[in-house]
């Protein structure tokens, strides 16, 4: 399998190189034969990489420990479920995974792109092949997943227990899919720059791709948060770790793009900005990969230092230089077709939204790189942590949340005073109302007050939009309310799906605000003893240690404590919390003990119980009890966000805007686009 694997990597390397050359040359000289060859190269590339992936998986499933990768990340007693994920549990395998998925997307875009967008395809093939070839180069010359062991060990080292969690089976591929799919919009951007076809055509071609990237990045981030929460045991879901930040950066830029692209479609403005966002998002995705693989920034998450980092650093530099040079030479072709007419317009609110997104992205990037920057410029390493990111991003995030409500209420071009009154009356009242309720309830945390009351405002804007839209349909077509709501959503997926995403953002912000009310205690308990903790939901929770059990299962020794939980004296259930010592097939310990957190999740609070250890091997145990408010709403908000994203993405639903002649713009923001009867 090692031979077949390495061989297929070499084939992929040559095919990728061929695709890159024929794509660029064929595009530049307009030679149809070369263009066709580049297109076919993406198919061959995918086939060759697929063979490599299958070879590696066969090696993993056969426990072929003559392969260094298989020996390093798996063992005979690793559950089958995690054998699948071993493909991307390590550096080398994840590079292979990355290249293969990219080649799949490269092929897909060649097959699925139709009509007048096909003119972009030769260069798209060239760019995707170039990027894939880079990843294959890294594998062949620095991190070959098919490297052989000098001897064949009896058993492999096994997989890090923290990765043996369902979240880790889905989190990396989702995040990678997001990262990787950004390459397609990037390839179109480069192609648009090279072909000088810089009108809004290429934006239409990449609309679905940008949404797909955004959706996968979102899902990846959310699963990652869930994994950190249930597996790492420190009690939260987001720590502003460099690796988390690296994943957040492209997400922020993509989100900014999804908004600003609407201005270009409607008004022909922001062409330079939109192109820059796509180029930036892709460079940030490569930068994120570099950050996690090079060891330049100390992170508890990072892969070990390796020469792979140099490859990425050079690739990043070259790609950035090439993109920026190309971008600058095409700037004269990117003049706006219209100018901003009023500060009180949808355009202006979108511009501010973009500035805030980029401001947040910049501060996250700056904070992440600050140890390096301060060492380079001031000679001392200064680090910033969660307090910095929270201090900067809470106000910016709240501003953004407010714009989430304001933007959709303001008309394009110029809003009139009566129009503003009509649009803002109900939502503003709702926001103030929520604020008053919270104040009466005795909440004094400024951040939480702002988050929830602005959230109330945004929610009211969305409800108002849906209500008005449904009423308009009701009047126009006589549809009953429920049908009207459904039709509204089905006929204007982008707009109303987007509103659903806004609702999800409100839910997430409120849930994030809840974390500032967490309470925590640590206790050493003998069986029968209890600890008490007051939750900020106004209830007193009593945790009684019922006893310890120890047993072997699959590939680990488990030490489990059973905790009985009472709320205000009434029993509400039992929670198991575990410490796991993973072992190899011979019963020797592998890795350090890991934590399996006991969580009792509810709508108001999560009870989060960590077993820290036993006192001198007795049943006396050390626990940390945390009451985390509103965590459930993070997952629910994430679910709503994905649903909203899927609605926007779902194919069909009338001609997409921008394909026909530009629609006449309605003055008021709420008006429904009424479909012509066909």
């Amino acid at each position: 399998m090692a031979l077949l694997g390495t061989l297929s990597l070499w084939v992929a390397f040559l095919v990728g190189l061929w695709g890159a050359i024929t794509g660029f040359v064929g595009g530049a000289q307009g030679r149809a034969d070369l263009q066709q060859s580049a297109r076919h190269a993406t198919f061959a590339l995918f086939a060759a990489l697929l063979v490599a992936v299958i070879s590696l998986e066969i090696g993993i499933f056969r426990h072929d420990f003559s392969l260094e990768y298989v020996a390093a990340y798996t063992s005979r007693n690793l559950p089958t479920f995690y054998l699948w994920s071993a493909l991307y549990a390590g550096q080398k395998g994840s590079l292979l995974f990355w290249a293969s998925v990219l080649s799949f997307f490269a092929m897909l875009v060649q097959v699925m792109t139709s009509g007048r967008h096909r003119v972009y395809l030769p260069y798209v093939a060239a760019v995707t092949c170039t990027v894939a070839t880079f990843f294959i180069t890294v594998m062949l010359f620095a991190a070959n997943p098919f490297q052989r062991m000098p001897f064949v060990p009896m058993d492999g080292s096994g997989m890090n227990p923290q990765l043996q969690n369902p979240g880790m089976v889905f989190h990396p591929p989702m995040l990678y899919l997001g990262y990787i799919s950004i390459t397609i919009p990037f390839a179109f951007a480069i192609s648009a720059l090279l072909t000088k076809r810089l009108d809004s055509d290429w934006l239409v071609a990449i609309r679905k791709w940008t949404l797909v990237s955004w959706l996968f990045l979102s899902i990846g981030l959310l699963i990652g948060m869930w994994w950190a929460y249930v597996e790492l045991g420190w009690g939260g879901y987001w720590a502003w770790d460099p690796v988390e930040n690296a994943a957040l950066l492209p997400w922020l830029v993509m989100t900014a793009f999804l908004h600003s692209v609407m201005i270009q479609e409607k008004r022909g403005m922001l062409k330079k900005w939109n192109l820059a966002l796509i180029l930036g998002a892709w460079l940030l995705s490569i930068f994120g990969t570099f950050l996690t693989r090079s060891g330049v920034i100390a992170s508890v998450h990072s892969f070990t230092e390796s020469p792979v980092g140099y490859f990425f650093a050079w690739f990043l530099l070259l790609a950035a230089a090439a993109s920026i040079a190309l971008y600058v030479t095409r700037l004269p072709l990117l003049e706006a077709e219209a100018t901003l007419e009023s500060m009180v317009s949808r355009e202006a609110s979108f511009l501010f939204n973009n500035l805030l997104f980029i401001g947040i992205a910049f501060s996250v990037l700056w904070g992440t790189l600050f140890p390096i920057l301060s060492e380079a410029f001031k000679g001392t390493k200064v680090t910033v942590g969660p307090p910095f990111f929270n201090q900067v991003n809470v106000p910016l995030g709240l501003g953004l949340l407010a714009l989430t409500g304001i933007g959709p209420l303001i008309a394009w071009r110029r809003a009139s005073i009566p129009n503003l009154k009509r649009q803002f009356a109900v939502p503003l009242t709702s926001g103030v109302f929520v604020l008053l309720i919270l104040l009466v309830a005795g909440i004094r945390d400024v951040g939480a007050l702002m988050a929830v009351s602005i959230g109330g405002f945004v929610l009211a804007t969305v409800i108002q939009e849906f209500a008005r839209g449904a009423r308009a349909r009701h009047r126009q077509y006589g549809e009953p309310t429920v049908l009207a709501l459904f039709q509204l959503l089905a006929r204007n997926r982008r707009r109303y799906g987007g509103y659903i995403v806004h609702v999800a953002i409100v839910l997430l912000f409120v849930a994030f605000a809840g974390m500032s009310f967490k309470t925590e205690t640590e206790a050493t308990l003998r069986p029968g003893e209890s600890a008490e903790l007051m939750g900020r939901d106004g209830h007193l929770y009593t945790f009684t240690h019922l006893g310890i059990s120890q047993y072997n299962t699959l590939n680990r020794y488990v030490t489990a404590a059973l905790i009985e939980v009472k709320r205000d004296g009434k029993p509400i259930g039992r929670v198991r919390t575990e410490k796991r010592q993973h072992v190899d097939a011979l019963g020797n310990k592998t890795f350090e003990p890991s934590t399996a957190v006991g969580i009792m999740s509810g709508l108001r609070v999560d009870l989060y119980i960590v077993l820290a250890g036993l006192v001198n091997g007795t049943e006396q145990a050390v626990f940390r009890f945390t009451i985390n408010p509103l965590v459930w709403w993070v997952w629910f908000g994430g679910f709503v966000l994905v649903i909203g994203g899927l609605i926007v993405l779902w194919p069909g639903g009338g001609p997409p805007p921008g394909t026909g002649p530009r629609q006449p713009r309605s003055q008021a923001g709420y008006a429904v686009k009424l479909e012509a009867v066909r």
Partner: protein
Amino acid sequence: MKAGTKFAFGAVLIVGSVGYLMASGIKQTGQYFLTPSELAQRVSADPSFYDLGLKVGAHVVRGTVSKDVATQTLSFHITDGTVSYPVVFKGLPPDTFTDSVEVVVEGRLQHDGVIHATNVLAKCGSRYEAVPKA
């Protein structure tokens, strides 16, 4: 005033506040990240360096770790090969903490010469790689 000019004001306002928030954030929450030798140097040059929030990255000295489970106090020494400091930490160490790992200790150096840690991060070779067989 033209809309473009007004917008420029708004943009400057946003960019300015981002800049201000970042600068003040770094000033208020930035922590020195030092090795034990650098820390010793700083302290001897400037005695006011005590009781200042900082991070120290170093190796745990093998055999110096003592845990008092009842009071949840962990004490150990850290070194970069030349200078070593005792550390006291009250709380739960991470799963990956052993007496042979690289750690980042977050806390304050007190006048008794002990680093009172508020947080201990253990940096295993990598989370994704197996522990190398010694």
